């Protein structure tokens, strides 16, 4: 193996370790870093919506589990604050 490839692989491994340590710090532990990479990052998207764009519509389910309504039904009268989230 040439010196060039030894240096390239060495730098790659150092960068990989730095990224892993950074993720551990952000997530809290190596287990959480794995969880972040495996389950969170693939689902997190900045998206393309911008201020001034028409707000997308979507059908939602009411708490009774059977009634449905659309986001658009709640807009138009006053500003609508939308809070996306989950229990956990």
């Amino acid at each position: 193996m040439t010196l060039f490839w030894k240096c390239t692989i060495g730098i790659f491994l150092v960068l990989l370790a730095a990224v892993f340590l950074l993720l551990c710090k952000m997530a809290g532990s190596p287990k959480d870093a794995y969880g972040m990479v495996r389950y969170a990052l693939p689902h997190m998207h900045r998206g393309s919506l911008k201020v001034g764009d028409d707000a997308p519509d979507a059908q939602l389910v009411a708490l009774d589990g059977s009634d449905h309504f659309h986001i658009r039904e709640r807009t138009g009268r006053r500003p609508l604050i939308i809070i996306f989230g989950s229990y956990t």
Partner: protein
Amino acid sequence: MVQIYNDYKDHADFLTIYVREAHPTDEWQMKSNMKDDVCYAQPKNLAQRVAIANDFIKRFHYPIAFGIDDINNAAEAAYSAWPERLYVIDESGRIAYRGGMGPFHYDPNEVRAWLAARYGAVKHDAAASSPTTSSSISPTT
């Protein structure tokens, strides 16, 4: 967000949209969820998702209007909303504010600032702030 809702509900409408769980037991569970006894597997069907949403509402007596994203995650995809995100839609149906991706850039204070710029600030005694929970919807912020 409940505090912001209470401060501005006479001026704006609020809608919470419940999306896929962020830290279910079968994916990336957090210690804080175990401590708070918020332990659920990722719902595989709408009935399971509705059941968890109702548990949340009952536990926190959550006062804000609530909608549940369908199991196909259409609202989440349309708004790039997972795991948590805030938007303001103005009266013309356009996006007036787009919050950053949660949890690192999820900032209810930006929504408060948007509302304050329109309707005036509402001040609170800092000592009266509420405790936090591990819930992504953060009923106490």
